[in-house]
């Protein structure tokens, strides 16, 4: 089936803990809900977690490792999501795979997935070493996730440099864990600061949201049940923009209402 139109998207950040895997899980569910056949590939062989965030950890029989060694068929290794059958996970194999896995192997897996899916989302490991380079080999385009913190932005910049040199494009940015109040107080890098520095188009803006932790506790991504939390909304919108829909981005300064927010905005105006 239509391999030519399949989109192979790397989800990466450089720094760990900024929300790569959470974005992969939520985006996977959101795309599947919108009718796209979506595969999520856990390319973090050392520290896999995508299965856990999707609530599929107990249903893994085979992994990418058995597919590559041809001891099982791709269909046997894919774990279909119960509530969202358009979504399937290809689990990461044993961490020892890192010793022999090559960029060619990753390309092979991605091509196999491309025969059955519209989207192949590749959850990259943190770092910029071998594991990341393997994951990058499987992708044509990329989403860089970062938070408005100096270390995360710096690491994102390194990753963007590598993606550019490998010709991966387009590269789009998702800014995660935005705190409107801190931004209003100018105690957090502004959205425009981050997009200016990294020179990437903004694909999504996700506000800090406690519901994300609740959802990972349960293994049910926020986009699954549409509970109306700000992050669920943001992830769904990222999926819609990926599909080509024109969805306006939220303005963090407008997220806060009332007199305090008004004073905050007044304090931000440039006077000279």
């Amino acid at each position, binding site marked *: 089936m239509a391999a030519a139109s399949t989109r192979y998207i790397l989800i990466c950040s450089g720094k760990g803990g900024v929300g790569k895997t959470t974005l992969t899980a939520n985006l996977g569910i959101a795309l599947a809900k919108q009718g796209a056949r979506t595969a999520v590939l856990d390319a973090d062989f050392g520290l896999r977690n995508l299965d856990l965030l999707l609530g599929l950890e107990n249903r893994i029989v085979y992994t990418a490792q058995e597919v590559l060694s041809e001891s099982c068929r791709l269909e046997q290794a894919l774990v279909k999501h119960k509530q969202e059958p358009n979504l399937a996970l290809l689990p990461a194999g044993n961490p020892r795979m890192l010793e022999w896995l090559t960029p060619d192997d990753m390309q092979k897996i991605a091509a196999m997935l491309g025969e059955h899916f519209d989207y192949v989302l590749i959850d990259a490991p943190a770092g910029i070493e071998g594991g990341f380079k393997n994951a990058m080999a499987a992708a044509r385009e990329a989403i860089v996730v970062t938070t408005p*913190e*100096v270390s995360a*932005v*710096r690491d994102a*910049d*390194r990753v*963007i*440099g590598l993606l*550019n040199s490998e010709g991966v494009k387009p590269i789009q940015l998702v800014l995660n864990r935005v705190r409107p109040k801190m*931004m209003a*107080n*100018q*105690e*957090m*890098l*502004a959205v425009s*600061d981050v997009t200016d*520095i*990294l*020179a990437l188009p903004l694909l999504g803006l996700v506000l800090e949201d406690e519901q994300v932790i609740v959802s990972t506790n349960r293994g049910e991504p926020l986009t699954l049940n549409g509970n109306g939390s700000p992050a669920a909304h943001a992830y769904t919108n990222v999926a819609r923009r990926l599909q080509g829909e024109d969805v306006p981005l939220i303005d963090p300064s407008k997220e806060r209402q009332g007199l305090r927010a008004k004073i905050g905005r*007044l*304090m*931000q*105006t*440039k*006077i*000279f």
Partner: protein
Amino acid sequence: MTLRDVINKLLGRQPASANTAKERLQLVLAHDRSDLNPELLQQMRREILEVVSRYVEIDIEEGDVTLETEDRVTALVANLPIRRAKLPAPSPEASLETKVGS
């Protein structure tokens, strides 16, 4: 400068940190992207000043050679105030000839 900055200044508070973060990031990224370590940059700066000062008298105190970055393009920017142009110095050969002649 924003109203908040003015109030912070009047109250003797530290300025808001977002701007500090942006400036520090821009500096560190210029170095990351060019892959130049600070010592190498310092050496290049000295050599550039040396070359330029052969031709013009420059204000070393005011002069500055830095890395700047915009839209993922990093540029080496030299800002060297010129005091005055130097008169062409006699070339080594010319002075040698004079010596031989005398």
